[in-house]
């Protein structure tokens, strides 16, 4: 018991990632404990999105390791050489994390219900009725109980993003990755999405968040990580990161992001 509680749910060790010749992640170490909410901040191009995409195995990476719930993900060893795992393995490991994208990426040919049900049916292999009930339940929780049969084009941006959150959360992932999920929304729709995340955080989900909403980050996070040029430059509790004692670079970043 104490062992499991002490063990981080996510452990990133020395993660290195290049696009061609350009090294974008230069050795990132980060651990996230169960039910912890960690927010990554940092200027544009610092590698925040790339880091999340590596954790969800949407990107390959060249060095380091990512361990999720005790399992090294993405790569294995064959004949002493590091090898990317096969499609079926990657899919299984991806299903352990949920991801919500900046651009929603809902399936346009499926209703809200269909979007949430697809993974439950095909990945979790639930019976249709069970999947439908669970999907409707999650859509209710994000305030869309009356929108089950609408296709994405009939929903506002905020509603679409809430469907995307339901789609990710209904899969009961161990870890949820949120990449600037309010950046594509009109200002008046931001809060409805953030309040859903607050509730999920309060319910004990483990969240790794990238956001430019500094006030939200401060209030919802247990820990803030400041990334700069592919490295973690600073990390600590919100009070510390947003408090007075901080490095010049972090101070400048926060000043530029209007904090």
């Amino acid at each position, binding site marked *: 018991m104490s062992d499991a509680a002490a063990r981080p749910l996510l452990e990133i060790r020395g993660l290195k990632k290049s696009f061609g010749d350009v090294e974008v992640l230069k050795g990132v170490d980060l651990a996230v404990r169960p039910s912890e909410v960690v927010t990554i901040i940092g200027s544009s191009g610092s590698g925040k999105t790339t880091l999340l995409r590596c954790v969800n195995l949407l990107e390959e990476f060249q060095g380091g390791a990512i361990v999720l719930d005790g399992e090294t993900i993405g790569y294995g060893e064959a004949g002493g050489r590091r090898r990317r795992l096969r499609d079926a393995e990657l*899919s299984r490991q*991806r*299903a352990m994390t949920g991801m919500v994208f900046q651009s929603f*990426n809902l*399936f346009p040919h499926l209703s809200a219900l269909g979007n949430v049900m*697809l993974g439950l049916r*095909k*990945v979790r292999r639930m019976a249709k009725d069970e999947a439908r009930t669970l999907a409707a339940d999650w859509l209710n929780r994000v305030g869309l109980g009356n929108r089950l049969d609408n296709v994405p084009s009939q929903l506002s941006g905020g509603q679409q993003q809430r469907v995307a959150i339901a789609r*990710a959360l209904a899969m009961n992932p161990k870890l949820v990755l949120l990449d600037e999920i309010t950046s594509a929304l009109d200002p008046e729709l931001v809060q409805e999405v953030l309040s859903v995340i607050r509730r999920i955080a309060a319910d004990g989900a483990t969240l790794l968040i990238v956001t430019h909403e500094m006030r939200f980050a401060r209030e919802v996070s247990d820990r803030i990580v400041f990334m700069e040029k592919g490295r973690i430059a600073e990390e600590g509790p919100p009070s510390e990161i947003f408090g007075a004692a901080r490095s010049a670079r972090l101070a400048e970043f926060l000043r530029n992001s209007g904090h």
Partner: protein
Amino acid sequence: MDAFLAQLWIARWPLFDGFLLTIGISVAAIVLGTLVGAVVGISLVFAPKLARLPFVVYVDVMRGTPVLVLILAAFYIPAVLGLSLSATQAGVLALALFAGAHIGELLRGALQAIPPGQAEAGRAIGLTFPQLLAHVLLPQAVRMALPPWINTGVELIKGSSLLSMIGVGELLLRTQEVIGRNFMTIQFYVFAGLAYLLVNVVLDTIGRTIERRLGTR
């Protein structure tokens, strides 16, 4: 006019048989061509570079060759290779290969027009590649490709008339045979032309209806 109707009555069964064969050939060709086209289209987008090459060559060759040449090739080449295909089989083969290239190409276009975020969202929930294809990518691609697919069907119906050149008794050849007996050249060609037109208008209407339905979803 009476004389034409009298001749038409006499020729009704051969013409009807020819009409049915035209439809049959076209349906067989679109079904086979769609199967081929599905493999070609998916391979063009997702196969490793080297494995893609034969499909690229296939599409280019088929699209660069007149249909009549394909038909003649399908008729004469298998015989040289010791395969015995009937004229109808050879004709269906040629039309299916032609359709396969076109459908493969339009499926490729449709698949590539899907935003990359779709595949990423599918992968993020843990779909395997076949599941991603079946439940996320193909449903969207098929919707996009449906209007041009119907168009390919129309092309096949028209193209099937070329099989008269290798002696397949489809509508055009039957019409020519009837004309050979009664010399009512213009009347019977117009009649055959109207029959082709009718089928294509029906197909077109079906296509538009489906398109409209999908558009308002």
